């Protein structure tokens, strides 16, 4: 046991050290390279002209983007872990249950549809939040369907199938809207669909952070019943777990986290599905007391790494984040799975 704890601490230590390094890299690397020396006198009033520009870039662009990446990474990874435990299925993840498709549908209706929906959004008081509101409405719409289904079907696999089917149906609607939309609108929608951490402006950042942190905190409170759920419904029930309640809690929390993130960043592939697997393989454990902090930390690191790669000068900030997450992430996970030979939820 002691040996086990030691190696886990070591891994946490390494991950912990990588976090500030990646943070600084995320802020300094980009089409405009920001020297490390700037951070040493960042808040000085007397700066040279180019330093003032750098500071402006950091505050207006790099910092909100980095914070968005951190929160999106940890929230999606957490949602993925919650869904995998809930459905006891290694393939479950935020994009599987149709929740992110729901968000896409909301955005598609606003950005591709003509007539009343656009009028409604443009007339609404929260014009800036238009797309975000639409995404959230779509995500929660799917979530409601899932919750109603959860009430009807007792079996988690059935619920998973319903989620996947809802996802297909929603995607079909999006396809239809794409087909009907004007070229310019379709292009804009496709861009949103590729995902980006740079959509959250400084003005929205506070709301973004405030809506995510409580959900992340509440998620951490569920580690004990989540551990019991690993044994299956009957054993969990026999241990005194209120199955109905924990199911609702997990569906609501994972759906909420996915909805908020997708609304602000577009559907981000891979991170939610793969980070829990990375955590299990790294720590060789299924204990949620270990996995929950692990996926939060790993989610941040994965998102920051992907963002960093996407922003490398060679890519000139034009490569969308989803291309990076899938292109670099998928081979990594395949390699790990092949190496370990078995993978679970």
């Amino acid at each position, binding site marked *: 046991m002691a040996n086990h704890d030691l190696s886990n601490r070591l891994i946490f230590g390494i991950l912990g050290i990588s976090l500030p390094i990646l943070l600084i890299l995320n802020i300094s690397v980009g089409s405009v390279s920001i020297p490390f020396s700037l951070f040493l006198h960042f808040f000085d009033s007397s700066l040279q002209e180019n330093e003032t520009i750098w500071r402006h870039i950091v505050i207006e662009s790099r910092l909100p983007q980095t914070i968005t990446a951190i929160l999106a990474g940890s929230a999606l990874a957490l949602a993925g872990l919650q869904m995998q435990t809930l459905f006891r299925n290694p393939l479950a993840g935020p994009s599987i249950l149709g929740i992110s498709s729901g968000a896409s549908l909301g955005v598609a209706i606003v950005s591709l549809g003509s007539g009343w929906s656009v009028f409604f959004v443009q007339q609404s008081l929260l014009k800036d939040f238009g797309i975000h509101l639409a995404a959230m409405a779509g995500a929660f719409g799917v979530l409601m369907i899932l919750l109603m289904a959860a009430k009807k079907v007792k079996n988690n696999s059935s619920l998973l199938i319903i989620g996947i089917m809802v996802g297909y149906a929603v995607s079909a609607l999006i396809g239809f809207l794409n087909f009907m939309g004007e070229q310019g609108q379709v292009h804009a929608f496709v861009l949103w669909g590729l995902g980006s951490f740079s959509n959250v402006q400084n003005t929205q950042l506070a709301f973004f952070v405030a809506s995510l942190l409580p959900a992340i905190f509440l998620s951490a409170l569920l580690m004990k019943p989540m551990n*019991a759920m690993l*044994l299956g419904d009957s*054993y969990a*029930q026999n*241990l*005194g777990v209120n199955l109905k309640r924990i199911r609702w809690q997990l569906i609501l929390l994972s759906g909420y986290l996915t909805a908020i993130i997708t609304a602000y960043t577009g559907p981000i592939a891979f991170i939610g599905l793969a980070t829990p697997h990375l955590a299990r393989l790294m720590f060789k454990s299924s204990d949620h007391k270990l996995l929950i902090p692990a996926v939060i930390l790993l989610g941040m690191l994965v998102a920051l790494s992907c963002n960093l790669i996407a922003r490398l000068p060679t890519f000139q900030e034009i490569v969308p984040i989803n291309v990076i997450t899938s292109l670099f992430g998928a081979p990594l996970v395949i390699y790990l799975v092949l190496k370990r030979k078995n993978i*679970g939820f």
Partner: protein
Amino acid sequence: MKFGQAIIETKNLSIGYVSKEKRTCVQKNLNLQLRKGEFCCLIGPNGVGKSTLLRTLSRQINPLDGEIFIKKTALSSISSPILATKLSLVLTEKIQVPNLKVRELVEMGRFPYSGFWGNLSPDDNQKVDEAIQLVGIQELEQRNFDELSDGEKQKALIAKALAQDAPLILLDEPTAYLDFPSKMSILSALRRIAHTKQIGIILSTHDLELALKMADLIWLVPDNEKVQVGIPEDLVLNGSIGKTFSDEYLHFDMETAHFLHKAIARDFLNVEGNSIEMAWFRRALLRKGIAAETEIQMPYKVSFDENKLFVVNHQSELVGQFQEIHEVLSWIETILNIESEHIR
């Protein structure tokens, strides 16, 4: 009280399934009772409702009628967290969790007692140690659960159930798919635990002969008949066991407590002697479906002589001497074939 306190008791219990509009009742008017320290085996043919009974007793499904009492408290009125401390389960469903250490699994049994974050107190850890020792899986403690053999998995699950520290443990076919030594070792461990910890244990099993050997109490669930309760010996003597499990090929032999193939060939020989060799010879005969006649004088007689040879006599005339049983058997089969050709 003379017999100790009842841990679980059913009053006019009816069990079965309720689907949309159909109510399928598999057993009704059950008045069963299990006392402290009793190791009870639930036996019966397939499909008579053994699993349904266990699922009803553990509140996984609701009774159709009647009531269940755990230590005099109605089961329906016990809250889930409290029930977790009264009754623990070992189920047939597979647990597939990667990287779950056996000790971590046993620690899950402390779930009803541990705090909000699931951290274990020294007392919890002591109970976990105790459970692991009682089942005798100390050497498996740090192994991964999914790497264990089926028998070791069952033991780990039993340890988890023990760590739950409940006065009643229900097990659904814990010996299925196990090899014979594992079956024996699990049943004897359970019996020992029931006696030393003075808890009630009910398990369903298809291993009839083992159940009759090991159980303090049998709940026999026959097809379409009332559940019979008793110690194994009484149920054998009153014929309930034989009646429930015999069919056209098998019958329950009261002397040996074994299920035997019914002899299909006609009796044509006597078997003499009670040596170990002759006992094994009788077994071989039974497997071949040949009945050895004991009362009436038959033309052929087999015995084992002082020269360690199987001797076959035909009307007290020596017709064959054999060293091994298979030789005697093939000789008998030849004779049988010749005789049946005569008839033809």
